[in-house]
């Protein structure tokens, strides 16, 4: 399998203009994702997961290092990558169809073929019949489906998913996870998925990347050798629990480090921007 996405020593430093303080968010992230692979990044909150995703999407320029997609350097957002955003981030003044079409409009795709494609993906995420509903008329889970369709319709080389299910209730989240795997199988996309939920990452992924506490770096890459298709019951399987335990131990150290760092730096001006970045 060829490498789809490669991050080479991504470093990202913020300057805080008010205090003049420098703040290191990412400290040399090295990562390679294969074509068609589903990779998740987990880490303690504030570790720079979302910041890293923004760099991959081209929304934030890295201070040093580079992102390669199919061997080409990424410098700005492009249609070969599509982001599935946290909290759905749908335009409230557009219908489901209008939201799914939004990306295509931004790229000036011809209206007729765009509509057909949008319809195709709306059906893929199970929202047939809701094309003309507005976001506020939909449940949180349905909004996330629109969010996903809006990214899929761009036919990207890689899907970047930024904690898409974090705001959902537990049951909806589980159902959405299972559906995401089915859609992933049908759409055959490479996925980079950010989450802070360890079992979500393991359940979905071929590989789970554990980030260190701030500044973010790859601590360890854990291959999930569990056959697909996976059912939700897998989460109670002993093999699954064993991996979960292993990953949790990796993260636990990092979480403790973060808490310790917060305690020592409390009150100083060193606090940096929040995890959500841009």
């Amino acid at each position, binding site marked *: 399998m060829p490498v789809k996405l490669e991050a080479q020593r991504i470093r990202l430093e913020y300057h805080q203009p008010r205090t003049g303080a420098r703040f290191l968010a990412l400290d040399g992230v090295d990562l390679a994702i294969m074509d068609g692979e589903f990779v998740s990044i987990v880490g303690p909150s504030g570790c720079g997961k979302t910041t890293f995703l923004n760099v991959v999407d081209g929304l934030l320029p890295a201070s040093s290092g580079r992102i390669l997609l199919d061997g080409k350097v990424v410098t700005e*957002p492009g249609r070969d990558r599509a982001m599935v955003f946290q*909290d759905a*981030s749908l*335009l409230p*003044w557009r219908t489901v169809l209008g939201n799914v079409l*939004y990306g295509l409009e931004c*790229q000036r795709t011809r209206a007729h073929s765009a509509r057909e494609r949008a319809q195709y993906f709306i059906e893929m995420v199970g929202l047939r019949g809701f094309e003309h509903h507005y976001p506020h008329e939909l449940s949180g889970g349905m909004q996330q489906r629109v969010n996903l369709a809006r990214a899929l319709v761009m036919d990207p080389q890689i899907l970047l998913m930024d904690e898409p299910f974090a705001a959902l209730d537990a049951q909806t989240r589980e159902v959405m996870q299972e559906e995401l795997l089915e859609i992933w199988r049908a759409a055959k996309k490479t996925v980079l998925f950010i989450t802070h939920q360890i079992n979500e990452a393991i359940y979905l992924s071929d590989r789970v990347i554990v980030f260190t506490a701030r500044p973010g770096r790859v601590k360890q890459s854990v291959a999930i050798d569990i056959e697909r298709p996976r059912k939700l019951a897998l989460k109670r399987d002993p093999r699954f629990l064993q991996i979960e335990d292993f990953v949790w131990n990796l993260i636990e150290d990092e979480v403790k480090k973060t808490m310790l760092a917060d305690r020592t730096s409390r009150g100083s001006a060193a606090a940096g921007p929040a995890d959500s970045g*841009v």
Partner: protein
Amino acid sequence: MTRIRGFYLAGERAILGAITVGFVLCFWEGLTRGWWARLLEPALGSGAAAWRISPIFLSSPTAVALTAIRVFATGDIWSDLGVSGLEFLLGFVLAIAVGIPLGLAAGWYRRFCFAIEPFLSALNATPRVALLPLIIIWVGIGIWSKVLVVFLGAVIPICINSLAGVRTTDAKLLRVARSFKAAEGRLFRTIILPSAVPFILTGLRLGVGRAMVGVVVGELYAATAGVGFMITVAGASFQTDKVFVGVAIIALAGVLMIEALSRLERRFETWRPKVGAAT
């Protein structure tokens, strides 16, 4: 019983409101007709006379209503209404045409905002009617002085709210547009402008109040026609009921316009960025 109760609960707001308005009107009518003086006479003796007030001071709801019918029937009022309406309309349309683009531009271009901010703040802090003497020197006592006062009154809230609308655009939606590589013009059209709509409507609603003040005070101060002018003339000649007719017309027009804009605002409520939703 339960049916009456259900009927009451369904229209509680309207029913309670109507009852208190009814009571106040009844009390007022009674003051000029001497109902309360007669009622209290056994208890207070000659002191009860204080509860009878001459119609020339207070008029009464029925007198006001009769006068209203008369002025509308004879057509005296129509020309004044037309003049005030025209002043309001011209001033308000001008305020929209200037205030919205100015506010949007100031919200979008930081430096432009810095440049016009002193004028906005100064004008916002000055009661616009204080400029009337100047305005009259410049454009005379015809309708244009009122148009200008209305404009100056309404343009500030419209501008400031449009500006706030641009500034409070949800950062998450901007990120969506940037991620899709939307060009600046498209980003403005598809994200910034719609999310400013509820704020612009708020600005219009606040602007209506200021504009009404502008029309009336402008006409009270110096005019040759208009509802405010009618009020001044009627007041100077002790036609108390006619003064009340003028006041009621102004109040009614203001309430209707503000209510219409509030409804419009509520329809666009879902477009407003959720406060505290940002993480």
